[in-house]
């Protein structure tokens, strides 16, 4: 699998060539023991730390549990309460807004940037380093500097007021808070998407462009007729990652919105889960929120995969 993996087929995409011909017999018993040895840590992890706990989350979500007294079975009560909880609904709405705005803008910018960076000119490695740097930085530290950028006496307001635009409160403003966080996240998320797009661009054979040039296609024509269609697998891939990543926003919100206390303007789904479970110790309630998040992500991912055939072109 190289630059543009097809997620849906990942499991079966690259089948290992059969190592030893064993004329249809199954693996030797002794080999089975080796497999078990190599897989033991993974199997335990899967059962106890990842796949198992998803079911455990469902079970816990049916209880009322403060971790001090024994859990009480309450059926679907938590879900009912959640749907009437204003803070949860706000978290849902903010997360949805964040996803719907940040994913398309982020991907479009990344595509433009990757196209610009896809050139063999001297010093391009250094230029790329500058663009890629946000990739490795923690959202926590980044949020601090953006907090200053957005502060009342910060540079953003300085620049705007130079143009006669009044100073804004950005993070503290109920309407502007989420867009402000989105702008920062797009900046930080750019490198990863650019890198995937760059790999996709570099996998497009140069002959395609040569042939199109001979046929009289201009730059824009070549971009639209060759680059875009051949890049759809990369777009699909970055789309999945961006979608799942968008549901997980936490760090920025925690740091920027007056640590640990985001108002209703910026609270996100993960923050809500964190708050319910680890601040208020309502484990059942937090688990119910988690399970809803799981369902939303699962449905969104499945729907997204379903659209694959309609717009993704595999060579």
């Amino acid at each position: 699998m190289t630059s543009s993996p097809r997620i849906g087929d990942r499991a079966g995409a690259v089948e290992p060539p059969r190592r030893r011909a064993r004329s249809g017999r199954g693996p030797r018993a002794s080999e089975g023991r080796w497999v078990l040895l190599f897989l033991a840590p993974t199997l335990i992890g899967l059962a106890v730390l990842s796949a198992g706990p998803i079911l455990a989350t469902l079970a816990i979500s049916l209880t009322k549990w403060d971790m001090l007294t024994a859990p009480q079975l309450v059926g679907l009560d938590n879900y009912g309460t959640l749907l009437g909880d204003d803070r949860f609904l706000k978290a849902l709405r903010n997360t949805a807004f964040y996803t719907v705005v940040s994913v398309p803008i982020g991907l479009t910018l990344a595509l433009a940037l990757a196209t610009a960076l896809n050139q063999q000119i001297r010093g391009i490695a250094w230029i790329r380093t500058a663009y890629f740097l946000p990739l490795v930085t923690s959202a926590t530290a980044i949020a601090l500097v953006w907090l200053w950028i957005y502060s009342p006496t910060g540079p953003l307001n300085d620049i705007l007021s130079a143009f006669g635009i009044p100073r804004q409160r950005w993070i503290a403003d109920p309407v502007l808070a989420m867009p402000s966080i989105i702008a920062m996240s797009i900046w930080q998320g750019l490198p990863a998407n650019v890198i995937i797009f760059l790999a996709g661009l570099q996998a497009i054979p140069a002959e395609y462009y040569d042939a199109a040039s001979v046929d009289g296609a201009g730059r824009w024509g070549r971009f639209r007729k060759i680059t875009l269609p051949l890049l759809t697998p990369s777009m699909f891939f970055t789309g999945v990652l961006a979608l799942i990543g968008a549901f997980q926003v936490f760090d920025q919100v925690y740091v920027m919105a007056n640590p640990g206390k985001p108002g209703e303007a910026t609270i996100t789904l993960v923050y809500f889960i964190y708050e319910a479970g680890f601040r208020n110790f309502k484990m059942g309630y937090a688990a119910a929120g988690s399970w809803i998040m799981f369902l939303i992500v699962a449905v969104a991912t499945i729907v997204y995969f379903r659209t694959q055939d309609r717009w993704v072109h595999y060579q």
Partner: protein
Amino acid sequence: MSMQAATARTARRSATRRRRKLVRQAGQYSALVVGGVAMMIPFLWMLTVSLKTRAEVFSSSPLFFPSGLHWENYSKMWFALPGVTFGTFFQNSIVIASLATLGQVITCSMAAYAFAVFDFRFKRVLFAMILATLIIPFQVVLVPNFILYRYLPWPFSESGNWIGTNLPLWVWAFFGGAFGTFLLRQFFLTIPSELADAARVDGANPWQVFLRVYVPLARPALATLAIFQFMWSWNDLLDPLIYLRDLPSYTTTVGLAFFQGQFVGKWPEMMAGALVSLLPMIILFVIAQKYFVRGITLSGLKG
């Protein structure tokens, strides 16, 4: 004569073309450089603010450079919290990130080897399950994992269980992981089976084949996984926030977030702290950029 004129004309035309190409390249070049600087601006501001006096941050325009280099902001930041220094946070982060990295490298390469080399029942189902966990946000299992660690005994902690220790932040790494298994399996599949066969003829068992053939050959892929896991552990905020209870056990990220809550408005110190916390990753990135790029393109997963 006319031949000469024609040659001259061609030469002139190609010169024009060359010049036009040069101009276009210069344009692209400067656009890329300007864009690169724009991407770096938050980092540059972090640096300039960290060197200003507090008064300067509020009075002078943020766009200007500091009047002098106030390095004392860094020492103020380092010793700002009672009883602990920023060095303690660093140490905690290094310990946790190193152990998590070690665990992932060992157990993911083992699982990847099994998937790449052996045939066994339920192989496809199992591999699909592992990949599925890539798509599921880990926050979904926060609650059950917390409860699990809450009931695992630990005699040396105040709580008597794993809560308040750094165990929940790295022990999991010794039980496999989807990203690493996928990444390494892809790599192992490219290793010709003849090499393993040769070792086997020499009497090596699968474990020895794994250690002597596969692991040495997979060094670049192992480095990629190691670098990513180290970065994720270093940058993680949510997990340390949940599991670490007292200041001396905080990681750099939690320490930084805590710092911000305590010192609202102390921008120079805060920026100094942010910059110092990023430094190890920035250095790692400049040294090992190709591994980052490879890791992203190979499986493109951010966490």
